[in-house]
C-alpha cells in the first residue's frame, strides 16, 4: 500500500465516507473565484472539533498540507490547496450553538452560512453586521479567516471588530481558545485578532464567539449621481467632514450602473453618471436628519439625487449591488469578469487619486474598468472584464492588475481591502508591509513549524 492510500485509510477511520480522493471530486476543490488553481490529494468533511484534531494529528505525522475551506467564494485563492494535501471542507460544521442576547453574542461553528446566521438572529432583533456580497453563500469561518467585510462596514467595522473568541485546532492537533465571552479583555496578546485574516495559516477555526448588534429601526437610501467618479470620490471626505456617518457608502461608476440596470431594468438608480449609494440607519428621526444633511452637503457636487425608504426597493437595490461583480457578462456576452487586482484600499482622502490611477492603468491596456465598492472605507473594487478566449486580453489584464497593486502600495494603500491575500497577492505583501512581514513570518513559523497549514499563502512558502 502506497503512502497516500495509507493516509486515506487513516482519514477514513476518522470521518468514514466523508473523505474522497478520486480525481473528479478533487478537481471540484481546486478553485475558488480567483484564478488560482491547485489540486488537493484528499477532500474531507469533518463534523466535530475532535475529528479536526485527529485529522491535524495525522497531517502533522505525515507532513501533509491542510487547507481549510468554507464555501470557496474567496477571491484570492485562500482556500485553494496550491501545494496539495488535505482540503478540510468545514461546511458540515454548521450549527449555531448559542444565541445569547443578554451577553450580546452568538456561538457558531465555522460552516454556518452568513445569511442563515442573520435569519436566525432576526427574530431577536439582532444581526451580525459584516455583509460581503457573497452573504447568501459564504461561511462565517471563511469570513473570519479573511477578515471579510462588506457594504455596511463603513459604520459597523469588519469581522475583526466582532470576534470575541475562537476555538482553534493548531498544527499539531492541540486545541486552544483565543479569547472568552467577555465583550472586552486586556489580557496579553490579542490572539483572536491574530487569527482573524490569517487565512488558515495558523490553525483551523472550529468554533467562534461573535459579538452581535441590534438591527436598526429604520434605513434610508440617498443615491447621488456625479459628473465623474473622481468627483464622487471627493464627495466622500466631504460627507464625513460634515459629521454624517452613513451605514453604507457604495460607489458604482457609470459602467457598473449600466450592468445593474441590465440585470434588472426596474431597479431605481440615477442613470446620469457615476453613483454613490449612501445608506443611513438608526431611529426614524436620526435617519431623516442624516438623509437631509447628506442631501444638503452633496447638492453642490451632485448631478442628481434620489431618496428611497421603501424596504422592497432597498432590498432590490442591495441584492442587485451584491451581484454586480460577476454580472458584466450580461452587458456583453463575449466578456467575462475576472477577479484580479480587484480589491484595492486607500486612505479616504486618497480615493480620487486612486480612481484616477485606475483609469490611467486600464486605459493604457485598452481595458474598460468597472469601479464599485465600499468607497466610504476607502475600498475600490475594480472590475476588469475580458474575452476569456483571447490570450492577448489575459496578458493585458494581468499587467493591469500588477500595476494597480503597485499603485495602491505607492500611495499608501493596500493590495487587499477585504478579499484577502491568498496566493493571488502574496508577492506584494512584503513590499506593502516592510519589516512587519518578517514578524508575520516569525509568528507563522512559531505556530506552524512544519509549514503544513495552507502553505503558499500570504507570501509564505
Amino acid at each position, binding site marked *: 500500500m502506497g503512502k497516500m492510500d495509507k493516509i486515506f485509510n487513516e482519514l477514513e477511520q476518522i470521518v468514514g465516507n466523508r473523505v*474522497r480522493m*478520486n*480525481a*473528479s*471530486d478533487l*478537481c*471540484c*476543490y*481546486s*478553485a*475558488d*473565484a480567483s484564478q488560482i488553481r491547485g489540486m488537493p490529494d484528499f*477532500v474531507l*468533511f469533518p463534523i466535530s472539533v475532535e475529528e479536526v484534531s485527529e485529522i491535524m494529528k495525522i497531517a502533522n505525522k505525515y507532513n501533509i498540507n491542510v487547507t481549510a475551506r468554507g*464555501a*470557496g*467564494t474567496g477571491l484570492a485563492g485562500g482556500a485553494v490547496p496550491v501545494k496539495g494535501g488535505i482540503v478540510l*471542507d468545514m*461546511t*458540515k460544521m454548521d450549527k449555531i450553538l448559542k444565541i445569547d442576547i443578554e451577553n450580546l453574542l452568538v456561538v457558531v461553528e465555522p460552516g454556518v*452560512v452568513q*445569511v442563515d446566521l442573520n435569519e436566525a438572529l432576526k427574530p431577536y432583533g439582532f444581526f451580525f453586521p459584516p455583509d460581503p456580497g*457573497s452573504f*447568501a*453563500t*459564504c461561511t462565517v469561518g471563511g469570513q473570519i479567516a479573511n477578515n471579510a467585510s462588506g457594504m455596511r462596514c463603513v459604520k459597523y467595522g469588519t469581522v475583526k471588530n466582532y470576534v470575541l473568541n475562537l476555538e482553534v485546532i493548531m498544527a499539531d492537533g492541540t486545541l486552544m481558545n483565543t479569547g472568552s465571552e467577555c465583550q472586552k479583555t486586556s489580557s496579553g496578546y490579542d490572539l483572536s485578532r491574530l487569527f482573524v485574516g490569517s487565512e488558515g495559516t495558523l490553525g483551523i477555526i472550529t468554533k467562534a464567539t461573535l459579538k452581535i448588534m441590534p438591527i436598526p429601526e429604520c434605513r434610508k437610501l440617498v443615491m447621488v449621481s456625479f459628473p465623474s467618479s473622481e468627483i464622487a470620490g471627493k464627495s466622500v471626505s466631504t460627507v464625513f467632514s460634515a459629521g454624517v456617518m452613513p451605514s453604507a457608502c457604495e460607489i458604482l461608476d457609470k459602467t457598473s450602473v449600466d450592468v445593474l440596470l441590465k440585470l434588472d431594468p426596474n431597479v431605481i438608480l440615477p442613470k446620469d453618471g457615476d453613483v454613490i449609494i449612501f445608506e443611513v440607519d438608526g431611529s426614524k428621526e436620526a435617519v431623516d436628519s442624516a438623509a437631509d444633511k447628506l442631501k444638503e452637503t452633496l447638492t453642490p457636487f451632485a448631478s442628481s439625487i434620489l431618496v428611497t425608504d421603501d424596504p422592497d426597493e432597498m432590498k432590490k437595490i442591495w441584492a442587485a449591488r451584491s*451581484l*454586480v*461583480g*460577476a*454580472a458584466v*457578462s*450580461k452587458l456583453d*456576452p*463575449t466578456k*467575462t*469578469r*475576472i*477577479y484580479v487586482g480587484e480589491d484595492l484600499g486607500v486612505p479616504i482622502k486618497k480615493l480620487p487619486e486612486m480612481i484616477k490611477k485606475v483609469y490611467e492603468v486600464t486605459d493604457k491596456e485598452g481595458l474598460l474598468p468597472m469601479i464599485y465598492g465600499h468607497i466610504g472605507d476607502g475600498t475600490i473594487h475594480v472590475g476588469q472584464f475580458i474575452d*476569456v*478566449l483571447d*490570450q492577448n486580453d*489575459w496578458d493585458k489584464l494581468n499587467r493591469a492588475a500588477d500595476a494597480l497593486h503597485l499603485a495602491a502600495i505607492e500611495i499608501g494603500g493596500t493590495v487587499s481591502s477585504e478579499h484577502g491575500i491568498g496566493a493571488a497577492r502574496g508577492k506584494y505583501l512584503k513590499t506593502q508591509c516592510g519589516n512587519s512581514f518578517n514578524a508575520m513570518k516569525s509568528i507563522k513559523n512559531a505556530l506552524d513549524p512544519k509549514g503544513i497549514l495552507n502553505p503558499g499563502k500570504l507570501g509564505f512558502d
Partner: protein
Amino acid sequence: MNFDKMKYGQKYFPDVDVRDLYRCVSCGNCRSVCPVFEVGGWESTNTRGRILIARNLYEGAEFEEEIFDSINTCTTCGICAKTCPAGANPPALVEGIRKGLVDMGKMTETQKRISETVDEFGNTLKSEEKRNSWLTSDIQVPKKADVVYFVGCLDSYRYKETALKTYKILNKLGVGLLEDETCCGSPLLRIGFSAEKQTDHNRKQFIRSGTKTVVVGCAGCYNTLKSNFPELEILSVSDFLSKNIEKLKSAGLKKLDITVSFHDPCHYGRDNSIFESPRKIILEICTLKEMKNTKEKSKCCGGGGGVRTGYNDLSIEIAKRRWEDLPKGVNALVTTCPLCVRNMRDSNSNPEIQVLDIIDLIESALE
C-alpha cells in the same frame, strides 16, 4: 487558460458552448440554489463543481466513472442559470458534456437502458400497449384538427386517467389527437442522446394531422416540442385552458371550498415563463397559497434530467426538501407536469395532502 488543450473539447464536445464553459467565474453563488447540492453537499454535486469537471473533460482529462455522479446528477432545473451573476447556462453545458460522453460510448447502464427502451418501445415505460389505450370508445376524435393534444409517455401509460380527463375536456373544445404519437425525445436529449428518430416521427404526425397548435400536458414534452418545432404553436394544457376559461365556466366550472398550493414545473416555469395560466385557473376554482419558493425561484421536484431514473434516492430526497416549501393550511399541492406529480407523490409523507395534476382540480370543479 490552455488554448491548445481546448482543441480536444472542440472536437469531442461540439455541443458545448466554449465561451459559456469559461464564463463561470466559480463565485459559488449556485451553492445557495442548486437542489442537488443541498442534498449532496459535495462540490461535485453543485453547478460550480460540474463546470470544473466539464472544463477538465473539455481539455482532455482522463475519464473516470465518478464523473457520472456529478454530470448525471444535474436535474437541468435551471435555477443556477437564472441566478448566475456571470450569465452562464449550466444545464446546456451539462447536456453538451453528456452528449459528448455518450458519443464516445461513455454512459451508465441507466442511460443505455433508457435509450434502448425509447428506441424499441417509443416510450420510457417499456410498454407495448397502444399509446392511446386510455381513450374510451365514447369519445369521438376529430379526424383533422387545427389543435392536437400531445399526451406524452407518462400520461399515456402511467397516468392514463389524467390523459383521459384532459382529453375529455379538450375534445369538447375541438382538440384532436395524433394518430401515432411517439415519445417527444426529451428523456433522450436530457441524458446525452439524439432524438432525431422521435422528432422525425412526430413531425410526420403533425404534418399528417394538419395541426397548427399542439397542447402539451408535460413540461418536458413542452420544452422539447417548443425547441424542435418552431413552426408550430406549442401550448401547455394550462395555457390552452386558461385561454378557454369562459368556455369552462359555461360548462359548469364551479368554486370549490379548498385551498391549494402550486408547484411550478421547471421546464414550464423557469424555462418558458408559464407562471400565470395555471394560477389563473386555480384562482377560478379555489384559494391559492403560494409555496415558499415560487415562480422563477421555484425549487425542482428532483425528477428531471434523468435523475429520477438514475439516482432515485437523491431524486426523492430533493422532492422531500421541496415539500418543506409547502405553506400551512392547504388541502392539496397542484402541479402541471406528470413527472413532478410522480416525484411529489412518491416523497409525500402527509396522507392528508393530495398531489393533483391541475386537470384533477378542473375535473372536480366541473363535476
